[in-house]
């Protein structure tokens, strides 16, 4: 207790508490006076009395020092003294300080911003209790049938039920799927995104209800009353945060549903869900084994790790494959921690970005080191004197490091402000393509990270100058004196090494950015197979509950399309169940007539798209052979399909596809006839070459969900209100959502690439700027240092051109060295980037060449001003200055 009080007193002493120096002085002087008086009384002469008193005290200065040491903590006091000193010095040269702080602010700010993204997305555990135990469980499809497509596959109901019954690794396992939920009866009709979840879903997550209760195993029994759980966000935005919502009935998909609870939502899971309702399967749906439409999560039991769960799931899958070869042959299961599963797509890109900002910061560090070096050399004399009067080397190093750290912390503060802004911008522009984007914030961890980075930056940047300055001996420095003597060869080498490193780092970043820009161009240059210009799209869902009969649905959609086509400015309109390049399009097994009969699980899987009449012409898909669907292809007529050119080539490589027949086993066992071959459309992503697609006419396979595609002669967005009105004229309760142009749909499919490219480009530009500033700074300093030499040269008849050459060569040497090192480094980095590039190799020659050119130009530009200054040197003045 008392000891703690003592420490506290010492800790606050530097801030003016406790004895002042003057107090200590006075007390010791009074001590001497008292002692002198005693001594005189004892008969000593005044001088002797004073001498004796001083000896008895043990020396005035030494006693004062010891006294002061007890007052506070000596290390802290000297630190605080140094900080005060540093702040004073920095305030005295505002130009230098501002430059340094801004440079560091940019570097540290970029790091804080990207770290806060990485922190929220990758590092922070999912906001569920003991979330490391929550796993996603996927099917792995047989590779032959899904050549070139994802190895993670959704799960079929019957397989899930077997997994759940047979496994011992999971405490709870749950399945869920996407549902649209048309909300009506309260203002504008709206489509909510819903998750249909099995009873244990919330037990897997251990999520909490804010109000009421969550769903449990009683709710997914068939025939149960309809219930729904609202998400916190939708409850606030759509229901005004109504506290009495529990027990109320809302209209979902045209049916009354009782709200049983509100879910606290620290994050959205699944990412799309606004509301959750029980997943209820009829017996025939439970038996489906070959159609994979659901996602599975599970919570591991205590003491079971991923490896064991994986081993068990693999053996269960093998058993199922033997038991049900028709559906399950070749299908495996894979267990992935849910967190990893959610962020897998962006993790790599984010880590590359983090590496990029670290490079930017290193460059900023090197810049600061150069600035400090120049400054510290100007203070050589001050430091030499301090050394001469006994300041230890450690003390001086401490002082210099404190200076650079004070600058870096200033930079960190600016950086945090910059990071705050850029986080907002990042979330705004890229939030849709980043999982967990809503959790990105400047939290405590980011603040701590920024502080540590700032201090580390200060120390790293300060080390080189401090080491340089304290190495030489004091007398030497004093002799050279006056702070501007000749530049040492050693010191020049340090500066050149720093600039070389800056250029090399900047170049590597530029190459990375260049590769991503090229990748992005390549992606944009890929012909998606549709012409998105002047096409608007919007989603319309006809819920099962209100339109129970498929024919009824077909009739309503026909009516909607008829009215939309009549809207002024609309050139053509049609519909498709899943837009090109949008997630979630259907993949279905296909059986070709005339080929050996195979079970569903062994049939090749192709994209199957449900389209209304006229779809190909609206998006400019060409009919290469045969005919397009017509109004005649309706229910009751012969079943027709269109195949894409690559699908036709796959199945009938040497024959005409028209008239060939196939079966889509998931829809029905009926045989369908190919009536036309159409041009390919990239359905799975611009970078995925596989475009094999089969189209079925909507009138023959009416699905509850369609996206309208509307080509207009007017600017496409201007027809939207009239189109929405046309839909509402058919059904006023019908929500129209996801209104966007086809261009936007395609753009969204490469949003992640755009995110990585834009940020990396910004950071590379920043790095280049900083490197340019670095070259400029070093040259300016060199010109100042060599004024005399330049003066002499000019006096001896050197032309301006020679002077310019002198400076430019000085600047280009480290630039070119950095260029060479950076090119080698960038080539070596190729592997890191190979997952991020498309259509080019990571050692793309044009990119490397262009970047090298840019770096040389920037290097030359950075030489210009210093070179110009050098030519303005007046020989007479330069010589007289000495």
């Amino acid at each position, binding site marked *: 207790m008392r000891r703690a*009080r003592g420490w506290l007193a010492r800790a606050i002493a530097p801030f003016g508490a406790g004895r002042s120096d003057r107090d200590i002085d006075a007390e010791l002087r009074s001590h001497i006076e*008292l002692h002198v*008086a005693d001594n005189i009384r004892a008969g000593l002469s005044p001088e002797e009395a004073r001498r004796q008193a001083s000896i008895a005290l043990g020396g005035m200065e030494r006693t004062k020092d010891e006294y002061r040491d007890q007052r506070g903590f000596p290390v802290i006091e000297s630190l605080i003294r140094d900080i005060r000193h540093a702040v004073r010095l920095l305030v005295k040269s505002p130009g230098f300080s501002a430059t340094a702080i801004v440079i560091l602010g940019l570097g540290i700010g970029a790091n804080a911003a990207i770290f806060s993204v990485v922190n929220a997305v990758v590092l922070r555990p999912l906001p569920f209790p003991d979330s490391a135990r929550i796993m996603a469980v996927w099917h792995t499809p047989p590779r032959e049938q899904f050549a070139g497509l994802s190895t993670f596959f959704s799960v079929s109901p019957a397989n899930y039920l077997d997994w759940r019954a047979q496994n011992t690794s999971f405490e709870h396992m749950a399945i869920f799927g996407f549902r649209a939920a048309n909300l009506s009866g309260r203002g504008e009709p709206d489509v909510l995104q819903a998750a249909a979840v099995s009873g244990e879903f919330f037990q897997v997550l251990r999520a909490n209800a804010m109000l009421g209760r969550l769903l449990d195993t009683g709710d997914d029994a068939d025939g149960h009353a309809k219930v729904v759980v609202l998400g916190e966000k939708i409850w606030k935005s759509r229901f005004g945060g109504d506290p009495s919502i529990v027990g109320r009935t809302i209209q979902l998909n045209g049916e009354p549903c009782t709200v049983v609870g509100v879910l606290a939502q620290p994050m959205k899971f699944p990412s799309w869900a606004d509301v959750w309702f029980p997943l209820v399967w009829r017996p025939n749906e439970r038996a489906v084994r070959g159609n994979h439409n659901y996602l599975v999560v599970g919570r591991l039991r205590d003491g079971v790790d991923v490896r064991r769960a994986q081993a068990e799931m693999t053996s269960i899958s093998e058993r199922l494959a033997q038991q049900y070869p028709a559906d399950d042959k070749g299908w495996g299961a894979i267990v992935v921690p849910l967190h990893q599963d959610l962020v897998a797509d962006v993790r790599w890109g984010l880590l590359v970005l983090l590496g990029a900002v670290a490079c930017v910061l290193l460059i900023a560090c090197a810049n600061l080191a150069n600035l400090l070096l120049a400054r510290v050399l100007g203070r050589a004399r001050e430091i030499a004197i301090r050394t001469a009067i006994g300041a230890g080397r450690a003390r001086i190093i401490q002082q210099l490091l404190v200076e650079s750290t004070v600058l870096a912390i200033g930079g960190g503060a600016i950086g945090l402000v910059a990071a705050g802004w850029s986080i907002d911008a990042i979330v705004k522009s890229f939030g849709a393509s980043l999982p967990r984007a809503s959790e990105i914030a400047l939290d405590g961890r980011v603040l701590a990270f920024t502080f540590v980075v700032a201090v580390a930056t200060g120390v790293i940047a300060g080390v080189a100058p401090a080491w340089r300055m304290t190495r030489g001996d004091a007398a030497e420095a004093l002799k050279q004196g006056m702070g501007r003597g000749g530049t040492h060869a050693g010191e020049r080498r340090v500066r050149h090494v720093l600039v070389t490193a800056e250029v090399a780092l900047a170049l590597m970043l530029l190459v990375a950015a260049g590769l991503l820009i090229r990748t992005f161009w390549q992606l944009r240059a890929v012909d998606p197979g549709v012409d998105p210009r002047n096409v608007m799209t919007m989603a319309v869902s006809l819920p099962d509950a209100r339109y129970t009969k498929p024919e009824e649905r077909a009739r309503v959609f026909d009516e909607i399309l008829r009215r939309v086509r009549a809207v002024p400015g609309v050139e053509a309109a049609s519909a498709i169940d899943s837009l090109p390049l949008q997630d979630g399009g259907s993949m279905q097994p296909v059986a070709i007539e005339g080929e050996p009969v195979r079970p569903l699980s062994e049939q090749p899987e192709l994209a199957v798209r449900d389209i209304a009449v006229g779809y190909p012409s609206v998006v400019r898909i060409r009919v290469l052979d045969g005919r397009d669907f017509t109004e005649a292809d309706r229910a009751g007529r012969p079943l027709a399909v269109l195949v894409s050119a690559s699908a036709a080539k796959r199945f009938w490589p040497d024959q005409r596809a028209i008239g060939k027949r196939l079966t889509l086993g998931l829809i029905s066992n009926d045989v369908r006839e190919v009536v036309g071959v159409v041009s390919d459309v990239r359905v799975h992503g611009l970078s995925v070459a596989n475009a094999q697609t089969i189209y079925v006419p909507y009138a023959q396979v009416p699905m509850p969900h369609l996206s309208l595609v509307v080509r207009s002669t007017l600017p496409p967005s201007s027809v939207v209100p009239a189109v929405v009105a046309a839909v509402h004229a058919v059904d006023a309760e019908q929500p129209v959502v996801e209104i966007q142009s086809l261009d936007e749909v395609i753009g969204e499919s490469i949003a992640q690439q755009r995110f990585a490219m834009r940020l990396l480009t910004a950071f590379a530009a920043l790095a280049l700027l900083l490197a340019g500033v670095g070259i400029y700074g070093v040259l300016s300093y060199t010109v100042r240092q060599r004024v005399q030499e330049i003066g002499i040269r000019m006096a001896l008849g050197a032309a301006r051109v020679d002077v310019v050459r002198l400076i430019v060569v000085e600047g280009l040497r480290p630039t070119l060295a950095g260029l060479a090192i950076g090119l080698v480094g960038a080539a070596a980095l190729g592997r890191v980037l190979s997952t991020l590039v498309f259509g080019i190799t990571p050692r793309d020659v044009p990119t490397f060449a262009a970047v090298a050119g840019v770096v040389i130009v920037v290097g030359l530009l950075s030489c210009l001003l210093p070179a110009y200054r050098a030519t303005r040197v007046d020989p007479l003045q330069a010589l007289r200055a000495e």
Partner: protein
Amino acid sequence: MAETTDVWRGTLALMILKTLETLGPLHGYGVARRIEQTSGGRLSVHYGTIYPALLKLEQEGYIASAWGVSENNRKARFYRLTRAGRRQLARESHEWALTTDILSRFLRAART
């Protein structure tokens, strides 16, 4: 006796507290003189070492100080015991007595 050892610091603190208890409020010089005299000149250390020790005791709240005027009319900082200081003195003296008692027994026993 080495003047920087912990034992010395500890005993010095105890001597200061005892001095202040015996003589009442006193300045640093007086405390140093008193300790020197009481030890019969066997403790010849620099007077200066008394000041960090006084400050430490004050930081820990065992003594308090204020400027005052000495018996022969000189300004000086006077130290006095606080209540916590008195308790500490009692405790420390007790422990000290105990320690010396044990040690002297031990040393005697070891000799025989």
